[in-house]
């Protein structure tokens, strides 16, 4: 085998998807989803995941996604019915509060189910991933710690985030081989400060021109009504701040964190990973992608997705600490689609940062 026993020589991630090909799959997904009033979207999701997983190669072997459309559909129906029932019932004042408390207890369990489902349904070469985390860990790292950082005015947020990444990574495995993650807190604070710095910089550039106008009209609520143009300028400034300040700050943060997580992760205690995505390159990609997609009313979305996947793959490496042929799977654990559908609808991004 090409990749056997060459410890230390980095192996690049490769993404082999093609824009034209993906465009056709995406369009057909959309068409079939619309004409089946959304039912096909479950199969579309599977085809989408399979396309991106199967086109991602490490050491000549690709990933795969194994959930079936039916599993996803059933999960979505359960979640949809659950949300409808909950939102109707929770309009009753006291019951609403009780349900909120119940949900708070249920969320860690659902998170664990979602992580387990996604891991068990993913594979590399012929070996399935697995997730062994417990709901208590999810409760601490996804809910309690982030909540507690509130009392430090988010100054301790990097610690909470590191705890969450540790929980997620340390409980993942490839077959029987465990992932391990740890990193000094410095990397997390650097990401945090870089994102904050960007927000402050853009706040000064986009919002400062308005502060003067606002201050001079303090205590005069009718000022806006006399000059509607002022309200528009204010709105444009706020939107500029959201789209140029807040959202790119998220991109910056994720870029730094991705590098930190990759560089601090081991597999089976021997293999290491490396990521060197550059925040400014990612912002450039995100902004030009967004422009291209909006200006073409969505038609360029497949191009944007492929471009991003290529960039990520090109900046990810595996540094083998031994043969990559020796991973062995364990018996597949029983999982259900419920957790996955919940994560899907709520848009919680808890996947591996690949």
């Amino acid at each position, binding site marked *: 085998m090409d990749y056997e026993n060459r410890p230390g020589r980095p192996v690049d991630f490769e993404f082999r998807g093609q824009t034209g090909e993906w465009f056709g799959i995406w369009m057909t997904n959309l068409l079939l989803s619309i004409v089946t009033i959304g039912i096909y979207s479950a199969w579309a999701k599977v085809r989408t995941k399979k396309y991106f997983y199967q086109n991602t190669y490490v050491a000549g072997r690709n990933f795969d996604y194994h959930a079936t459309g039916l599993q996803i559909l059933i999960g979505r129906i359960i979640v949809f019915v659950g949300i409808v029932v909950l939102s109707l019932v929770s309009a009753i004042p006291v019951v609403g509060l009780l349900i909120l408390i119940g949900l708070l207890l249920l969320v860690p369990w659902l998170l664990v189910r979602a992580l387990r489902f996604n891991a068990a349904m993913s594979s590399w070469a012929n070996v399935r991933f697995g997730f062994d985390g417990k709901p208590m860990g999810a409760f601490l790292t996804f809910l309690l710690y982030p909540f507690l950082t509130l009392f430090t005015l988010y100054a301790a947020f990097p610690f909470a985030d590191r705890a969450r990444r540790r929980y997620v990574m340390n409980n993942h495995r490839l077959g029987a081989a465990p992932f391990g993650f740890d990193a000094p807190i410095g990397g997390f604070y650097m990401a945090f400060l870089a994102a904050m710095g960007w927000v402050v910089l853009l706040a000064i550039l986009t919002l400062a021109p308005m502060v003067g106008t606002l201050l001079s009209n303090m205590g005069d609520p009718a000022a806006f009504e006399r000059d509607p143009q002022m309200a528009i300028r204010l709105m444009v400034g706020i*939107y500029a701040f959201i789209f140029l300040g807040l959202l790119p700050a998220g991109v910056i943060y994720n870029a730094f964190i991705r590098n930190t997580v990759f560089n601090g992760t081991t597999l089976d205690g021997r293999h290491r990973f490396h990521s060197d995505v550059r925040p400014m390159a990612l912002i450039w990609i995100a902004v030009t992608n967004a422009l291209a997609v909006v200006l073409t009313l969505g038609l360029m979305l497949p191009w944007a997705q492929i471009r991003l996947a290529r960039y990520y793959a090109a900046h990810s490496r595996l540094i083998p600490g031994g043969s990559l042929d020796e991973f062995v799977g364990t018996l597949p654990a029983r999982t259900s689609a419920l957790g996955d559908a919940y994560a899907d609808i709520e848009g919680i991004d808890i996947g591996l940062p690949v």
Partner: protein
Amino acid sequence: MAATYGQTVHRVRGRAFPAGQSRSHPAELRLDGSAAAVVLDDGSTLAGCDRTALKVEPRLGATPRRLVLPDGTLFETEDHDAVDAAFGRSGWSVVHAAERFHPRLVLVVAAVVAAAWALWRFGLDLIAAAAVAMTPAPAVDAIDIGTLQTIDLSIAEPSTLDAEARASSEAIFARLLGSLDPEVRAAHDFRLEFRDLPGLGPNAVALPGGTVILTDELVTLFPDPDVQAGVLAHEIGHIVEQHGLHQLYRSLGIAVLVALLAGDTVPLIEDIVLEGNVLLSLTFSRRSEAEADTFGVDLAQRAGYDPAGLIRFFDYIEDTFGDAPSWLSSHPASGERSEAIRRQIGQ
């Protein structure tokens, strides 16, 4: 390369991964009659099964075709033609044909654009209307109770109106309800609530279950029964035509559609789509306001009030507050609304 021997024997070149292993071996899939076997290059058989027990994964772009044996052995090949020849076409072959980057794809694109437009223009309203019809009345009443409590906790102060002013507004409200079709009246739990809402100015709010909230400022600024009747009849119009619930389901529907259809998008895009949707939903909101105006003028007239009362209200609003550009607003410009009412009552 694949070679076909007669009708029943097929050989497909590829690579095999033993069950649950990351090591791959160059191998050949041999199909002979009803038997299937994965044979390694040294001639040994890695795994075998009945041909019908093979799980042949659908074709997806140019990715290698995957065939899984019951014991978990994975056979992978780029030789799609050989697999198709051995196993024939399935429903997924049709999907794959539609997906291919081929001039025919233009048809798919055109169909998607047409379907997406129809969905946005008509489908959403149909879905929302169906959902409104299916919502049980107690659930709608619960929304009123919950919303009123939220308003009381956050922005509302108790009303400081005297009993006389309240009684006069109550009487107008009752007279308007009396002019409603009895069947329509019975379908909602109409109630009038008074609140001091400092931020809202002279205003009235309709909740989907039938609760109408009148601000103190409106009652004190406009003691004129014709004005109050016009405003209250407008709010009753929102309730009877179920605009609130409809809009709730509409925005919910769009959020679900974006999540389901677009799936995992790229950073920034989802935020742009949702913000754009807010602007687009304002169109729907302005349409609802115009509908409620028409309904309200008609109802006030039937109840014996001067429908021009609502015009006086809008004129006051326009003089006092001016108008923001209409594309940014949830309500049509007050001037336009007065004009429309004048046309309606032929004045």
